[in-house]
């Protein structure tokens, strides 16, 4: 069963990415590859990515088409990255999530992934969508 780990970090943690002190930058960066490798070695890694900082985000109000710079949420912590893992159950997912090398002040949200109904995922593109494609 797939679970997504949403990694939220505060401004101080984001700032470490570009800290003038190379040791601090390295300390921040170097913890992630071993964790990713541990997921791979355990055969549970599905996907994952670090995200550029929130100020680089573009937000679109889908109903109106309005486009704004910046992230959607105005929360103190902002999404910094995610992992998708494939494990037997929530307990296993929580064990892996607790091992995430996140800095103090970080928050990890663990969410089960939707399972696409095979009939729907296999549905062919309708002709109207095909015609709308540039």
């Amino acid at each position, binding site marked *: 069963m797939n679970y997504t780990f949403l990694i939220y970090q505060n401004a101080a943690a984001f700032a470490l990415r570009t800290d003038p002190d190379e040791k601090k930058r390295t300390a921040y960066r170097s913890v992630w590859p071993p964790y990713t490798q541990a997921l791979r070695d355990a055969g549970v890694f599905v996907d994952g990515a670090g995200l550029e900082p929130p100020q680089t985000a573009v937000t679109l109000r889908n109903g109106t088409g309005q486009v704004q710079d910046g992230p959607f949420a105005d929360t103190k912590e902002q999404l910094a990255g995610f992992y998708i893992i494939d494990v037997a159950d929530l307990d296993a997912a*929580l064990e892996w999530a607790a091992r995430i090398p996140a800095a103090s002040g970080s928050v990890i949200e663990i969410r089960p992934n939707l399972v696409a109904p095979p009939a729907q995922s296999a549905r062919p593109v309708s002709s109207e969508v095909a015609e709308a494609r540039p």
Partner: protein
Amino acid sequence: MRFSILTYETPDNFAARSDSRREQLFGAVFRYIEELRQAGVFAGGAGLELPHTATTIRFRDGERLVQDGPYADSKEQLGGLFVIDVPDEASAVAWAKRCPREPGRVVELRAHLAPLNLA
């Protein structure tokens, strides 16, 4: 260049997953994924179960505090994400604009760091 298209949904959009609007809601998403695939830009993603199924772990001074529920207490909550691989940000914005429209849905576009490097 990889981007995540993060979709934030209203409670009503989450409710639509399990009522008469379900087929229309998911049908639009699957057609969008098919468009991304046929354009050769689809690179992954995930639909997420309802926010109340979330578990949250807060990291504080070496402690890990586990709670039920999502991180944010906002009205809109993350519903899923699409990962796309496109030449530049303009292409990413164009694809984000084509994300299926639902009332109240908000789409956030964020570039990925170098692959699998969370720093």
